[in-house]
């Protein structure tokens, strides 16, 4: 393999090992929670994880999308999971994360080793058709686990009003009653408030980190970012994740100041869209052979990151309610601030119109100075593939070359690596890029 050369210096991230450890601790702590008298709950990566935090400091979540992605990365295990769900009668075009997760239950195998750790309760929110139904089935497969789900599909951020907020906050209050009932624990508002503030810190700081990728050279590439943003999808309301993101921000800022690049030969910048095919992340390394860096995506930036448009029309991290001077001193004010904050989540907007997503993507394409866009037509996720064909048309109209590749984030049977590489070859050629090394 020829050595790649470039004009920019590069170096590994110093906090990389720490990120790995946080993730490892997370999955281990969940599995062993009962040994310490703690509680386990499962739910989606978008669920309001700050709310169960009020049950105590020994309450551990398992967010199922990142879990499904971990399964998908382990291709032989994933295949067994997918086949187990199909054998149980479920359609193979359903959400691939969900099928990997159900497969783990059916096989009674945890992807990190040992039997699948059954949760004590299920805590979810619902904006995609599969969200609440996912856990309806989990509850059935696990013999009837208590299940609570909050409907957050109340419209885009441009239409937020008191009626919508009250609907969500009301459900949150009902959810706390549910948590007390099914666990028999007394709820602690002080822990809720602390977790809610951590949530704001994590999600705002992750956006700050992504903002730094506006710089040329980009200090981070998307493949690396997948390993970092995931912490926010695991436990965004935890102290450890909020603190880690602040540490990460400092390090990435330092990289920018010193001109440290993610890839030394950066000559071309693209973004992707939707979850990547987790078993085939080599696609991103392949781009580097052309001097091309994927600087992120609306997905990596906005799945967890909190954003807003500043007075100059720039897309920047969202200022936390604490920075805005919002008082959060009791249960209701904490829940209200949380609901309002999440309704601005970028990845929730496109559920109402592809145009809202196109506008954000075009903003990224311009402000992060992109040469082109790679859209993953992801058969594994109907929620994030929603409207993607319209996004393609809008990006083209805005003047950005677009390559599409079809695949599946969590079902390797629906991804064709060779064909995708060929498409990348052709796309790079249209962008005027030549392969620099093999």
């Amino acid at each position: 393999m020829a050595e790649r050369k470039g004009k920019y210096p590069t170096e590994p991230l110093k906090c990389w090992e720490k990120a790995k450890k946080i993730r490892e601790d997370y999955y281990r702590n969940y599995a062993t929670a009962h040994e310490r008298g703690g509680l386990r709950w499962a739910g989606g990566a978008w669920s309001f994880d700050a709310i169960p935090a009020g049950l105590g400091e020994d309450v551990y979540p398992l967010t199922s999308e990142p879990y499904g992605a971990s399964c998908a990365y382990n291709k032989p295990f994933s295949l067994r999971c997918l086949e187990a769900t199909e054998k149980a009668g479920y359609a193979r075009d359903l959400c691939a994360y969900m099928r990997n997760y159900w497969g783990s239950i059916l096989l009674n195998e945890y992807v990190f080793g040992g039997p699948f750790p059954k949760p004590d309760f299920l805590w979810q929110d619902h904006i995609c058709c599969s969200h609440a139904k996912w856990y309806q089935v989990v509850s059935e497969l696990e013999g009837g686990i208590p299940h609570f789900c909050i409907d957050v599909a109340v419209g885009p951020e441009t239409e937020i009003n008191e009626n919508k907020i009250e609907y969500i906050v009301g459900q949150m209050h009902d959810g706390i009653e549910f948590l007390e009932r099914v666990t028999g624990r007394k709820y602690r508002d002080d822990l809720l408030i602390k977790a809610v503030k951590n949530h704001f810190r994590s999600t705002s700081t992750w956006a700050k980190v992504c903002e730094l990728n506006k710089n040329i050279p980009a200090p981070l590439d998307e493949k690396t970012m997948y390993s970092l943003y995931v912490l926010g999808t695991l436990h965004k309301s935890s102290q450890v994740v909020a603190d880690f993101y602040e540490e990460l921000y400092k390090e990435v800022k330092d990289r920018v100041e010193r001109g440290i690049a993610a890839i030394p030969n950066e000559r071309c910048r693209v973004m992707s869209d939707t979850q990547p095919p987790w078993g085939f992340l080599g696609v991103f390394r392949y781009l580097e052979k052309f001097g091309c860096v994927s600087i992120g995506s609306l997905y990596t930036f906005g799945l967890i990151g909190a954003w807003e448009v500043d007075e100059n029309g720039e897309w920047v991290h969202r200022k936390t309610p604490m920075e805005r001077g919002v008082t959060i001193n009791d249960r209701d004010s904490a829940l209200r601030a949380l609901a309002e904050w999440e309704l601005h989540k970028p990845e929730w907007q496109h559920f109402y119109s592809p145009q809202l997503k196109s506008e954000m993507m075009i903003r990224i394409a311009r402000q992060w100075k992109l040469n082109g866009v790679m859209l993953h037509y992801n058969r594994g996720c109907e929620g994030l593939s929603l409207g993607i064909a319209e996004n393609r048309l809008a990006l083209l109209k805005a003047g950005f070359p677009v390559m599409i590749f079809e695949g599946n984030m969590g079902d390797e049977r629906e991804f064709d690596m060779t064909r995708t590489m060929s498409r990348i070859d052709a796309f790079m050629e249209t962008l005027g890029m030549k392969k620099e090394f093999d």
Partner: protein
Amino acid sequence: MRELETFSSWVKDRHEYAKDWKKRTGGRVLGYFCTYVPEEILYAAGVLPVRVLGSHEPQNVTEPHIFGMFCPFCRDCLAQGLKGRYSYLDGLMIAQSCLHIRQAYTSWVLHIPIGFSYYLCMPHKVQSKRSYKFLRGELETFKNAVEKWTGRKIEEAALREAIQVYNENRRLMRQLFDLRKREEPPISGEEAMTISLAEQMVDKKEHNAALKELLGKLPQRKRERPTGTRLMIVGSEDDDLAFLHMVENLNKDQYPATFVIDEHCTGTRYFWNEAPEDSDPLMAIARRYIERPPCPSKDWEERKRIPHILQLARDFKVQGAIVMQQKFCDPHELDTVAIRKALEKEGIKTLFLEFDVTVPAGQFRIRVEAFLETLKQEDLF
């Protein structure tokens, strides 16, 4: 039967009907996706709501707009718009339900000029007590938008009258469907589907009048064929009259069969429950849509569809169920396993079919015939 022909012609000539209605009344026509649209508010404003459905013809115009992993129905609906078949529409709306049909709406408003468009945030958690106040608020906002669009205030009396007209329609439809409980139902599944499709396209007052006329004669009707196996159809959107026709005429001598009831959104889910007439009209409408038999996308955390389906199966003495869905319909795929299990536990055999834009007649014929044969064989033992 002459009284039935009215409904058939409405379905067949749906576009001509709507154009003629506009000419006759001077009113506006609004196309809608999904049966959670609160039609009563539109009706009270003098607007004719017509449900946008597909044409069941192969098409090649939606590929640039909707990724192929989404259901064929949503693409077929969008194709109708792109081909200009609904060019007479003055407005278009959707009530929030599944992600699939939502794309037909969003792409339509992006690419086809229309005077009024509206996305109604119908709550998903209809099992939450919080959904009533929320939906009432959303309906109020919607009512204001319709008033602004039409330039006409929607008075409370008009809303109450619309609720009465719609409730009467629902009652008449229930009367009609009750006749299907008979040992020899006087109406086929294909005919019943035609009538329920027509009610989603025409002025409810006219549909009511036609229904009353039909109900005056139908109870005395004797069909010239045996009822045979009593079938139920359970699933997603289904306006595949050709499929029902095929099954009911498959092998009339050896394996006669009749659809006696359905549980899908072009059928009973559309009209099964009424709005209470004794309260604040907007809250009454909210209650009606929240408490209706749910679409699977809203049937959580508890599964309320299943007891409803089982009750229908008992009331209509169902012997076999065809569980069908649009290909790639995630919400239904998330219910199918549980529904089939519940029906089989009740002793009702099921056949699962996935529908596309066109009905694969040959394949379905063989599968349905085998299913009917299986059901018939049970009688022997």
